[in-house]
């Protein structure tokens, strides 16, 4: 579990998560990227779209 920095809701991190994966807050919809640390996964705000994203 991680706490959403925006709205304080609990964000569930699935057991099969991998570093770099995006998780979304179930309450406010903010997206976060998973960072692997020794203590487990942490989250940081994710870029959700870029001007040159696609395919």
């Amino acid at each position, binding site marked *: 579990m991680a706490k959403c920095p925006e709205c304080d809701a609990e964000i569930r991190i699935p057991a099969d998560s*991998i570093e770099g994966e*995006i998780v979304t807050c179930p309450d406010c919809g903010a997206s976060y990227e998973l960072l692997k640390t020794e203590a487990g996964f942490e989250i940081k705000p994710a870029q959700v779209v870029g001007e040159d*994203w696609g395919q």
Partner: protein
Amino acid sequence: MNQEKMTSSSSLTILYDTIRWEEKALYEAAKKKGVHVTNVDCKNLFIDLNKKNSEFSKKTIIQRCVSYFKSLHSTAALEGLGAYVINSLHTATLCGNKLFTHMVLQNAGIETPKAVSAFSEESALLALEDLGYPAVIKPTIGSWGRLIALLRDKDAARAIVEDRAHMFPLYHIYYFEEFINRPPRDIRAIIVGDRVVAAIYRYSGSDSWKTNMALGGHAEACPVTNEMEDICLKAASAVGGNIVGVDLMEKEQDGLIVHEINNTTEFKNTVKVTGVDVPGLMIDYTLSLGKK
């Protein structure tokens, strides 16, 4: 040195900037096959471009950055240092630019929408007179339907062209295609090596003529016909692509025409509606290339 090391024992590297469904599926498919796979975040990477005997030399890398410019430039750096990147810089350069793609398709004898290009506001409007209305303006570089507009007449064209004149110089390269009369769908075919492994119809979302899945809409399985396979393999070959997504339209009277080739193709919807193990096939193919 690179922050995130690609260890010498890695047999396959997935280079990403965002882990979408596709990247996770590729990673899991590789693990399932017993492949030593390393995920490398392009955002954490820095590369000594002058290094001899680079750690990237002879690595097999699947390029999966969703950012086109990160993808293009990291491919140039890694390929330049001796890595085998799928797809190559040559393919990424051609596929990433609609004008470049148009020219190679045309020269390969593959049907593609009629198009005109111009390099100033004035010549853009003249070019449109020559092409005729309705027409479609597309940025030469861009995806997911961004900044693509349907120009029904000269007034609409003038407004859009004037807007583009105030944007980044890339948008001053005017590229217009004929508007294709077609069913409210297009086709995305996935090519892995010399096979069209699956294809889907992509239906427009409500109130939209664009068929990009990023804009809504839905997908359905599409049968791969001999005609489609022939066109897609020629298109992939024209850009030197190993693993690509070819987008086709069913033009009234003329049949299938190719309007785009994707060098880091998405395939989530294809797997979802066809059940084809696209990530597994991509891993098998990539490993077979590494052995050659």
